[in-house]
């Protein structure tokens, strides 16, 4: 997989303000969003409910219109042109499709809208049904599908034209762990095929596992954006020792040592800073443990998310006061 230096999706100062109620009260759903998504990358778009994720996706797809700001997809601002949309596959949150059609009929219909016909269309329908594991249910009416099946058929319709860009809004929400793992595997496979994936999700662990870059949105503002290496801070250092026994561990705890983990005769102690590493090593040696290695531990995406959102909420509270 190679990531291009030319953004395939770019927004500049993208802003969406809704007017609600009789008085036309303004609700700022998205404020000055500058975003660049590069060809071949997986971008995880994160944020709590109501932060503006779906608004961004609707703007990118031309379903709603910006109050101001610009959107470029594949180098053009005419994002509604069929030439651009031929290269985009979209999976909406909740998967809404005509219930009166069978699984394969849905795919035929959407495939036709992409200009696919005849044998090419049939081959593509067979391929995507197989990819999402829905071949067995292809002739069943959609109203008889479970939530997971609807999500899979939704992913299949997004992939029907073999698009360059996939925009996925909460692709694994509401799925059981096995279905989630399967969807995640499909996404990883698409990443390996060089597709550009824009994934809006609440599932932080999943995003962390497959994304190259992430952006965190709060109150319509993109708070942070970058690669995981750039964003995830070194949280602490883990010092690994061998020859641990219950007695030795008890002494360490009594002396103020912080146990991170314990596996058989190995014990992992947490050092809060570089300077603290020496104290931890000294503590381990003092009870007869043998030093194995020292590993820096990066914070998880979940920890980053909580850190960013907590700070944004505090900022909002200060502003309101």
């Amino acid at each position, binding site marked *: 997989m190679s990531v291009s230096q030319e953004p395939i999706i770019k927004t500049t100062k993208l802003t969406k303000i809704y007017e609600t109620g009789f008085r036309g009260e303004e609700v700022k759903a998205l404020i000055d969003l500058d975003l660049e998504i590069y060809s071949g990358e997986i971008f995880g778009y994160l944020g709590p409910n109501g932060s503006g994720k779906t608004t961004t996706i*609707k703007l990118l*797809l*031309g*379903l*709603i*219109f910006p109050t101001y700001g610009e959107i470029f997809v594949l180098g053009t601002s005419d994002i*509604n042109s*069929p*030439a651009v*949309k*031929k290269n*985009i596959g*979209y999976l*909406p949150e*909740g998967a*809404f*499709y*005509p219930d*009166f*059609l069978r699984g394969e009929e849905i795919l035929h*219909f*959407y495939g*036709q*809208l*992409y*200009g696919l016909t005849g044998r090419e269309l049939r081959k593509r329908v067979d391929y995507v049904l197989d990819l999402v594991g829905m071949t067995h249910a292809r002739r069943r009416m959609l109203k008889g599908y479970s939530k997971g099946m609807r999500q899979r058929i*939704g992913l299949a*319709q997004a992939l029907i034209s073999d698009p360059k860009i996939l*925009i996925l809004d909460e692709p694994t929400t509401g799925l059981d762990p096995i279905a989630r793992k399967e969807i995640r595997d499909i996404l990883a496979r698409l990443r390996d095929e060089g597709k550009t994936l824009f994934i809006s999700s609440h599932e932080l662990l999943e995003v962390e596992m497959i994304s190259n870059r992430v952006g965190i949105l709060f109150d319509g503002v993109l708070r942070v954006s970058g690669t995981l290496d750039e964003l995830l801070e070194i949280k602490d250092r883990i010092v690994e020792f061998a020859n641990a026994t219950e007695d030795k561990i008890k002494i360490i705890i009594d002396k103020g040592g912080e146990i991170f983990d314990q596996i058989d005769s190995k014990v992992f102690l947490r050092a809060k800073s570089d300077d603290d590493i020496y104290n931890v090593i000294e503590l381990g040696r003092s009870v007869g443990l043998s030093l194995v290695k020292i590993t820096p531990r990066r914070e998880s995406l979940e920890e980053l998310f909580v850190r960013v959102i907590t700070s944004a909420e505090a900022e909002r509270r200060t502003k309101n006061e």
Partner: protein
Amino acid sequence: MSKVIEFVKGPWYIAVYTWREGLRRKTLVGFLILSLLVIFGATFMTSFLNQATVGDVTTDMDLKLIKDICVTTISIFGVLITIFISASVVPVEVENRIIYTVLSKPVRRFQYLLGKFLGAQLIIIMNLCLMGGLFFVALYIKQRILPTLLLWSVFLTYFEFLIVSALTFAVACASSSSVLPTIAGLFIYITGSLTEYLKDVYNRSGQTGEFLDSLIGYLAYILWNILPNLQRFSLKTQIVNSQPNDPPTDVLIPQLVLYALIYAVSGYIIAYWIFRKREV
């Protein structure tokens, strides 16, 4: 040429899908079955009762009554189906959010609307063909004369429905539920069928010299000018009173078709103008 075909393909696929969706709508199918039952009952059942009471002689009065009931049934159920489908094809997709997946495909909003409108027309035409076809067969069995006048009537009724459909569709494109456009469609049909009375109201206004009287006259005049005159499309009196194979009289069919097409195109343009910047 290939560009034109490419352009038309999208709307056509959407039209066929809309038509298939319509066939599975319970309300729509209910209206259709009910209308077919009324036509069937009015023709075949009355024939059975006549034979039971006065032998196999069907009086002129009976036949006129049957024709009257059937033409009215086609008109009422036909317009209800027309309004119901035209008022709902777009709002239902917005409500169910199916529109997200369709508009995110390589389809312009103009094409999407064209597809939905054509799909509604396919449903209206199919319903008219079923109702008109049953009446056609029944009349032929009763009179042993091909009722060609009925074919002209069904043809003109479609263009009457086309006007109602296009204007209802335009209202539907501004609405997020099908309730308001349904009410608007009924209003368009009722007032469109009464435009001659509106002219009459205008002609009689101003006689008392009161402000309200003049205002009502003025409003009637505006509505008379804007609203289509749907009565022009009716061959009911002729169907009821003439021989089934008489040619249509007192109507200029090409002019009426053109008249309907002008309203239909205007309705579609208004619909697109509303929908092109609508946020979904």
